[in-house]
């Protein structure tokens, strides 16, 4: 996903763009004037939200690309709140997981009462702390958009649902008004989706949630919602009967729409480039690829559950449900918490054949080409691990819907063995008869166990070959390296050896380049962003101090991504 860079207007970048690509002069030009900043960051609404609910400790969560505005936002907000009250404002930098989610763990470090979330959001419900989301206001030419939309409506006879990125929410009422005017003579049904609410209240019990993202049979029709948008369809109509019109860039929110409503025709209006994109084959390709991953997952013996969120309501329940599912499928589950997964982190667990990433809907799709093992979503895991279920084309992104929809009903195990398309034949899954047998003659259980233990093992195992080991222990047994070997025959102490000195990027006995070393030095000078730093170095320098006081603002360095700009004082 590439982002256009040609905008000098203060705005929110809707996806993970690294500001490092822009030159410093550009960055200067980006400085928003105070008024515009106030408007863009919805300072007054925020202040009202804080004051009306009388919060005293407020965490402000910024994504990487907005962190540079944090000090100004704080100053503005402080002014708005008035000097009289004692509201504590804390700035949180990047989160452990996706920046679209509210970082509740980070907020709880400072006992915050609420979180103000800036930038692109998935509007996933929180579990304990209320949050106020500031979407930002991306510029859009209403007239151009309406023009494109109406021309599209003209060519397409189907009724249309209009969806949009949340950063365009501010302009939607204008678009709607203009469009209704322009289309007054055409008899095409148009449905505009609404933003659910920018205030997230924690859900005490996610089960009571009104099924966000799911479809509920309301009296008047069917209510759909996805990624913070909600809309109603008249009774008797499904999403297949509508065309989708998406206003916004090609980001994860859009991918979700394409995957979820893969039966509908979808067009995208790119506001920054002012053009209509009708080709969504790349997204359709993703769907096929996911399908392949499900097939891969079916053959897995060991499954790693990656905890990808600590905030989205119901994540614990989901993890438990996944564990249960995996166990029922006769596979082994390991739960791993590792922040944002990357290939190097996941490759540390080569025993896992597949990973399930439990996270908010918009970070759930990890392109797994670089990963040693595929990473799938809980929905895909349900398809893969509950025997007899088949993919019918529907796709569920938000795991809350999964909890609601399928309460792990005990499915009748089908008579047929499972057919694996990767191996081109039947493969045995967990066999129920195995258990029955052991229950029936417990007297023989011990004998059976010893028999198994005494099985002749292959002397030359193909270590690290996927899909053979049944558990982590099995896997380690087949590895060729089992740890240091003790040489019993030599009792003499080993001779003393002097090793290499220096850093791995260039030891002292090798030619070293001073530039590479300079990268690692943090320049503590201005209020501006300085240089790029190796995350490891920052991690060691600042990781020990999760919160630092800086320019009158608390900043969390808890989690630092690779190549992040470092703000120093």
């Amino acid at each position, binding site marked *: 996903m590439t982002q256009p860079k040609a905008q000098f207007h203060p705005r929110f970048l809707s996806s993970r763009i690294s500001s490092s690509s822009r030159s410093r002069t550009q960055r200067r030009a980006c400085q928003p004037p105070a008024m515009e900043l106030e408007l863009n960051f919805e300072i007054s609404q925020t202040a009202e939200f804080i004051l009306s609910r009388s919060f005293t400790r407020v965490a402000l969560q910024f994504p990487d690309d907005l962190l540079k505005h944090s000090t100004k936002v704080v100053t503005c907000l402080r002014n708005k709140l008035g000097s009289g009250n004692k509201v504590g404002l804390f700035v949180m930098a990047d989160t452990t997981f996706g920046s679209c989610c509210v970082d509740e763990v980070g907020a709880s470090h400072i006992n915050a009462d609420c979180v103000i979330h800036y930038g692109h959001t998935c509007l996933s419900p929180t579990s304990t702390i209320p949050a106020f989301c500031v979407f930002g206001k991306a510029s859009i030419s209403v007239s151009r958009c309406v023009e494109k939309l109406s021309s599209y409506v003209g060519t397409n006879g189907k009724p249309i649902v209009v969806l949009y990125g949340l950063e365009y929410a501010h302009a939607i009422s204008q678009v709607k008004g203009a469009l209704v005017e322009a289309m007054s003579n055409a008899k095409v049904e148009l449905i505009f989706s609404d933003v659910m609410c920018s205030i997230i209240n924690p859900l005490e019990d996610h089960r009571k949630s009104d099924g966000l993202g799911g479809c509920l049979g309301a009296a008047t029709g069917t209510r759909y919602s996805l990624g913070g948008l909600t809309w109603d369809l008249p009774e008797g109509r499904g999403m297949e009967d509508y065309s989708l019109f998406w206003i916004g860039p090609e980001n994860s929110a859009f991918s979700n729409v394409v995957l979820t409503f*893969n039966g509908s025709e979808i067009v995208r209006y790119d506001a920054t480039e002012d053009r209509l994109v009708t080709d969504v084959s790349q997204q359709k390709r993703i769907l096929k690829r996911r399908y392949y991953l499900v097939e891969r997952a079916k053959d897995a013996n060991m499954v790693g559950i990656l905890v990808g969120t600590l905030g989205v309501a119901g994540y614990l329940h989901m993890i438990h449900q996944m564990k249960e599912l995996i166990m029922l499928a006769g596979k082994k589950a390991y739960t791993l918490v590792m922040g944002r997964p990357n290939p190097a982190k*996941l490759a540390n667990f080569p025993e896992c054949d597949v990973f399930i990433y439990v996270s908010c809907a918009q970070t759930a799709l990890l392109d797994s080409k670089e990963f040693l093992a595929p990473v799938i979503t809980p929905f895909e895991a349900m398809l893969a691990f509950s025997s007899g279920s088949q*993919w019918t084309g529907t796709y569920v992104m938000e795991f809350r819907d999964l909890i609601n929809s399928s309460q792990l009903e005990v499915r009748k195990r089908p008579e047929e063995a499972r057919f694996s*398309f*990767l191996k081109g034949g039947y493969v*045995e899954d967990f066999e129920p008869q195995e258990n029955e047998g052991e229950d029936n003659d417990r007297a023989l259980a011990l004998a059976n166990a010893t028999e198994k233990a005494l099985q002749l093992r292959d002397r030359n195992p193909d270590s690290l070959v996927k899909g053979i080991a049944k558990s982590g222990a099995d896997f380690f047994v087949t590895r060729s390296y089992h740890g240091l070997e003790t040489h019993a025959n030599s009792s003499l102490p080993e001779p003393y050896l002097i090793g290499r000195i220096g850093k791995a990027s260039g030891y002292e006995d090798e030619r070293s380049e001073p530039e590479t070393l300079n990268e690692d030095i943090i320049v503590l000078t201005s209020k501006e962003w300085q240089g790029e730093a190796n995350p490891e170095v920052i991690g060691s320098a600042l990781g020990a101090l999760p919160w630092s006081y800086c320019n009158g603002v608390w900043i969390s360095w808890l989690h630092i991504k690779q190549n992040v700009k470092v703000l120093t004082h």
Partner: protein
Amino acid sequence: MSVIAHVDHGKSTLTDSLVAAAGIIAQEVAGDVRMTDTRADEAERGITIKSTGISLYYEMTDDSLKSYKGERQGNEYLINLIDSPGHVDFSSEVTAALRITDGALVVVDCIEGVCVQTETVLLQALGERIRPVLTVNKMDRCFLELQVDGEEAYQTFQRVIENANVIMATYEDPLLGDVQVYPEKGTVAFSAGLHGWAFTLTNFAKMYASKFGVDEAKMMERLWGENFFDPATKKWTTKNTGSATCKRGFVQFCYEPIKQIINTCMNDQKDKLWPMLQKLNVTMKSDEKELMGKALMKRVMQTWLPASSALLEMMIFHLPSPSKAQKYRVENLYEGPLDDVYANAIRNCDPEGPLMLYVSKMIPASDKGRFFAFGRVFSGKVSTGLKVRIMGPNYVPGEKKDLYVKSVQRTVIWMGKKQETVEDVPCGNTVAMVGLDQFITKNATLTNEKEVDAHPIRAMKFSVSPVVRVAVQCKVASDLPKLVEGLKRLAKSDPMVLCSIEESGEHIVAGAGELHLEICLKDLQEDFMGGAEIIKSDPVVSFRETVLERSCRTVMSKSPNKHNRLYMEARPLEEGLAEAIDEGRIGPRDDPKIRSKILAEEYGWDKDLAKKIWCFGPETTGPNMVVDMCKGVQYLNEIKDSVVAGFQWASKEGALAEENMRGICFEVCDVVLHADAIHRGGGQIIPTARRVFYASQLTAKPRLLEPVYLVEIQAPEQALGGIYSVLNQKRGHVFEEMQRPGTPLYNIKAYLPVIESFGFSSTLRAATSGQAFPQCVFDHWDMMSSDPMEPNSQAAAHVAEIRKRKGLKEQMTPLSEYEDKL
């Protein structure tokens, strides 16, 4: 027994006569019905696609059995016959048929002679230790079409038999004994399947033995080879005396009489015919006497020399009974120790022993979606309701993998188009079982529930491989479950077809050839998916990635944390080594000492180096390897597993187009590791190893390998020009051109890239006005000489196309992404 031959040599037609003799179809229609071609498209195309089993019961007369020397009980014989397809695309069906039979009737067209497929199936049969008998078929062509005279015909037959014997002689097996065929011993028959008649020399020997007053065996010898008879002098000689009346025994006593009868029939000289027939003790029914011409001839010949009796006699006399055959076949069949109870039961064909049954194919049942498991009982008995242990192809004794216990719902005897349910089936027979299809993909070994120590019966080895692939998808997205179900069934219904899924999520169907695939897809859509529409892509050919020479320099990659470095070089494997790995002569499970001996002696490896092979790949057995060339590197053994994992990954998806690698040897030159174990874990090493493998591949002049067919074409001389021009146009090249002695036909062997082969048959047919018919078998991988790294080269075009299909970035990842600088 199975009936095997080249395509269009008349297997199914001949089988009909045997079926007719067992009373299943009427004699009159034998040869036209083609009982064993059960499918509509088989009848339509006139070729057999699936092998079909048929169990035939005969009662032989005492008289005909009096010269039978082996043991026998009673006169009843049960012959389990399997008719197999001749087209090379379906040769997996032949393999499946051979496995469950003990004898083979090799059918050879007397004019076309021994063809490529005859040779292939014959060698396959011998590999399975199956005793062959030969029949020289389409004799009617000699008499009616070509009207050759006796001596010429004899020479032709002699050559056919000799050619077959040459093939069989190359295969020496002390246990099987002499497998060559001799007309004078009765192991060669002469038949005309279409007209339903056949004879062996025995028939004529019997007839003449009394007349000449000599022993039957002696007479037989005289009827073949260099034995001449001069009716004028009434003397036998071993040389042609040169007198006009002196003729070869075979010509004089076998060929001429038949020719005479046929000619009289065809000319409707009935007045002459009846006395002749009377002489031969042939009595015709009155209504048959009304027949004319060809019909009359057919009827007369059928009555005089019924194909069934000649062939049956040959089979009964010369093909082994199961108990006899299993004595020597057990070694080929059983995977476990040859002295255990199961091996003994198979050896003795013991009906009281433990059940050992091999399912060699699955036959679609009439109720859609279900299958019969068709196989052969090698020992014990299988009965309705019996609980059996199903050991799949991946079963390892002592483990639970690929093992099911299920009960047989019904046992059935296969009778061509219909089936008959029976209570039980004892060893030595073919059987079809109901109720096991949901646990067997293609083949399996069955045994009794409690026989936990039994090893499975060895898996079949196919002579063709699925190289032609298409991606299928359904027209309506919601039909996906139907497609999945259909593919599952398709995979079952054919021993060779492979249904898989690509990284991009496309369903792939792979078959042995274009025709095979066409049939498979038709089955898929019509039978297994209930007519739901599918879209198929153009045929997809899989390539391999290899390297031309050694890496131009040692490449290095750093781990993500920069604390570890791997140095590596790639080089091509020695010629023939990749094939040796394919064949399993060299593999990961070898004893390192033996392996290093082979490598040192045949491929010139350094002996110590050969012991330092870390692994093979992809899938741990593939034709690429990693060799450790480091000296004195600390902790090296610690990262071996990680490097191996990275290698399995990289060798499966090469750097050019994510195709499998082939024939690359990666040498680990040096390794620098962090002193702290936590910084050199799998997470750091596996991705780094993958990158360095790619870097070394890219620096070693990477090349693409394309699959190449061996094409064999038989055509008359005037068609040669057309053949050559089509081959040239398709990048093929002829390496052998031979005239078939005694015929105007030419045999052409050529190599043809698989990617050019689509539509080859039809183009060829068009260019030669239907006179040339090619048979393509995958032969080898051929390196494409053009450099895929060079834009606009042919290889680069292929790479771009593959990448596009797989949904990869159009540009190859540059070397700089994989290689790091110090």
